[in-house]
């Protein structure tokens, strides 16, 4: 292993693989080798079946907008209101907070994208999927 923590003081020891993947524009999730459940954010064992045997897998990053709000007040210095914040439910199950560009509605299908940030790893965001049918 590299001395990751010394090179990039972002995140924590458990989330390092997530942010390493983000730097490659990949969405990484923990998957349990025993029961197959996915989980996010990372934990030291599987919350579904209690197994310690977890692996990191690359998610296709597809899911649906589970909920959404339009924010009309300033929260961050570099984020000009109004803007939408969404909660995405990935096809694997876990939910992630995000932005969707261009805007979507609850129930719309989306796919992950990555927004570059100065001095920090790329941030997972989402964009609408043209094909709105569920996978499979």
């Amino acid at each position: 292993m590299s001395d990751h923590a010394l090179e990039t003081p972002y995140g924590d020891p458990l989330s390092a693989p997530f942010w390493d993947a983000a730097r490659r524009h990949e969405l990484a999730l923990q998957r349990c080798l025993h029961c197959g459940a996915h989980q996010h954010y990372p934990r030291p064992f599987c919350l579904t079946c209690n197994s310690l045997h977890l692996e990191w897998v690359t998610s296709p990053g597809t899911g649906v907008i589970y909920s959404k709000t339009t924010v009309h007040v300033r929260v961050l210095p570099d984020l000009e209101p109004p803007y939408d914040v969404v909660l995405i439910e990935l096809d694997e199950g876990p939910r992630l907070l995000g932005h969707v560009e261009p805007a979507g509605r609850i129930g719309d299908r989306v796919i992950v994208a990555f927004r570059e940030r100065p001095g920090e790893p790329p941030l997972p965001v989402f964009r609408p999927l043209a094909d709105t049918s569920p996978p499979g």
Partner: protein
Amino acid sequence: MLDLGRTPVYITGVAETALGEVLDQTELSMFALAAREALAEAGLTTHDVDGILVNYMGEEGSVQVGEYLNIQPRYADSSDLGGAAFEAFVHHALLAVAAQRCEVALIGFASRQRTRRLRAVGEGSADTYSLTAQFQTPYGLPMPIGHYAMIAARHMHQYGTTAEQLAEIAVAARAWAARNPRAWSRDPLTVADVLGSRLICDPLHKLDCCLVTDGGGVLVVTNEARARDAAKPPVRVIGAGESHTHWHLAQMPDLTVSAGAVSGREAFGMAGILPSDVDVLEPYDSFTFTVLLALEDLGFCAKGEGGAFVEKGRLAPGGGLPAMTSGGGLSYNHPGALGVLLLIEAVRQLRGEAGDRQVPEAQVGVAHGVGGMLSTAATVVLARE
């Protein structure tokens, strides 16, 4: 085994701190004066107190309050369950008093959040070690309103709940506030006023949000022997429960079900009552939607039917379920943590001393606290002796 029939527990004293804008006191002095007043109702003084349960009174809050009042307790609790902490403290005090681990418990809180301008919508620190800073803060979801808005939006999508129905809750609270001389906002309010106020986080408008005031309050919880000293009619604690669901919004198991589903089941189960037995309800109204979700999770209506339930003034004076009878956090006062004021109002209603807003012959009252990002809930069932 808890046997509240053999070892009944009572709230025998309640007092608000100074409310609104408080310029001439500190949080500790506000707490001290309210404690003195609540203890006087209970026929007691600080010398009788052997339990302290506080939230938001600084680091190791019960320790700071204990020192300020020169109380060295044998039961202490500074658990942070947000605004629901006080209903949870009644739960804890109920168990502690019934188990004879303390006799006289003080529960309370005071804040000068308004005059000291302590509110901010940002969250977390710049330290990206924290889970919040990594996975939530960068998306600019204002705290707490953005979280409540996102939960409300999902409910509206799933069940067809409307902004008009949410506004009905603010209108009901204001109608009660008009009858409460201590309420901050008493002017008439309509659904159109709420919908016409500024959108902060869709679907929540400014008038869907609680006030930001100074204030707080103190309660005295004690046993049957001590309750005999009380100057006011003791109100019995017959049920209590608590729970929490999540810290980060993305981890909330189901956006349409709050921790109130568990806290309510526990409290109503202990009390052996049904929602239909409740004469007066004091739900945490940090936002209009907080009330709607509580009505469903406590079982006053089925899941998804909260919107229809609150229509036609159901919660307002003269409605089928008197709720937010002080005017609530929406129109009376909201010092950042409302739970203690909900309990005080429920006690006053059950004593029959609520003046123009008195619910006739109220026998059973429920205070339901909600805290964090709709994360925590605690429910207390009170009964007139």
